[in-house]
């Protein structure tokens, strides 16, 4: 997929610029873009390091585990098809808490383990279960508390208050997560007959 997206951008961009006669711009762009990526990475680096440092403390002191345990009862309610006390619920909670704290990369292994654990409960191995879809909806709508990368880009763009979007971001991602969960429920009940054989 990424092959087609990445290659497609080049192909479409270059051909379109040939058609519109904007070849000079494209020529410069290819040469100067590489150096702007170095600037970009230098912008992300300090905030990323700072935040991961703080979060390493939270992880070593057991704070992240504690928070994950706190939300497990709620998670149990959201996944009626997973038996209570099942390990999948703990994995899902950890994944959600880490995503919330902006630890996307650390969250992914837990997410993959959660999928595997849900797959063990699955009767039709090539078909998604209701629980898997609910999990992915929460995961992609991702309630993020600290959008670290966004903040670092706002600093560089010269924002007078780079973190002033934090509260709105939290509210927005929370609301869109709720919308996602409602849609998930809606689609499930509407299509239940069609997939009656599978949980």
């Amino acid at each position: 997929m990424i092959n087609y997206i990445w290659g497609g951008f080049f192909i479409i961009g270059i051909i379109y610029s040939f058609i519109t006669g904007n070849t000079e711009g494209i020529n410069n762009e290819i040469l100067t873009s590489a150096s702007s990526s170095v600037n970009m990475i230098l912008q992300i680096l300090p905030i990323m390091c700072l935040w991961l440092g703080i979060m390493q403390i939270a992880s070593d002191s057991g704070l992240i585990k504690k928070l994950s345990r706190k939300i497990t009862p709620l998670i149990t309610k959201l996944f009626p098809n997973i038996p209570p006390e099942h390990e999948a619920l703990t994995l899902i909670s950890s994944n959600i808490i880490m995503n919330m704290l902006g630890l996307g990369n650390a969250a992914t292994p837990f997410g993959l383990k959660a999928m595997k654990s849900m797959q063990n409960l699955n009767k039709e191995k090539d078909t998604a279960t209701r629980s898997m879809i609910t999990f992915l909806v929460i995961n992609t709508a991702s309630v993020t508390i600290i959008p670290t990368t966004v903040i670092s880009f706002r600093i560089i763009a010269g924002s007078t208050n780079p973190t002033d979007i934090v509260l709105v971001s939290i509210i927005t991602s929370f609301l869109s997560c709720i919308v996602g969960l409602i849609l998930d429920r809606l689609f499930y009940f509407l299509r239940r007959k069609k997939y009656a054989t599978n949980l």
Partner: protein
Amino acid sequence: MQLISSLIIPTIVLVVIVHGLINQVNIFDSFLKGVKEGLKMTLDIFPTILAMIISINVLLKSNIIIDLTHVLSPVFKVINIPSDIIPLALMRPISGSSSLIIMNNILMTLGPDSYIGRVASVIQGSTDTTIYIIGLYFSSVGIKKIKYALSVGLLADLSCVIIALIMVSLFF
């Protein structure tokens, strides 16, 4: 509201440090360990950023997105989405690094404290790469029939764009 926003990060830092000290963690060592992790992670994403910047910028410089946006804007006007935000809204579910670069372009040209700049920041910060995550997670366990997962994921993304537009205009 601005006050609450500016309190969130310091509060988290305070809670984490106090909790670490109470639990007798070597907080300084832990912090350094995390910083090293951050260095490694940033270096790991560097090739992706470089690759995506070049290809996105070639696409953007060809003006095809702007021309397409003009064609599509009547459609988005119906649901009240400003045309500046359309490229970001379209790329966000597909590729995290390319939407990040589009957001950066918006911040640089329209300003981080403009309405569109703030909406772009909120969209980038409050939703994830739906198509990528669905692909990665389902393929990791060999699921081929994903049923309604993609429809729900993309509709949630659209709702995020609309909510961001409303919330930013309410709060600022």
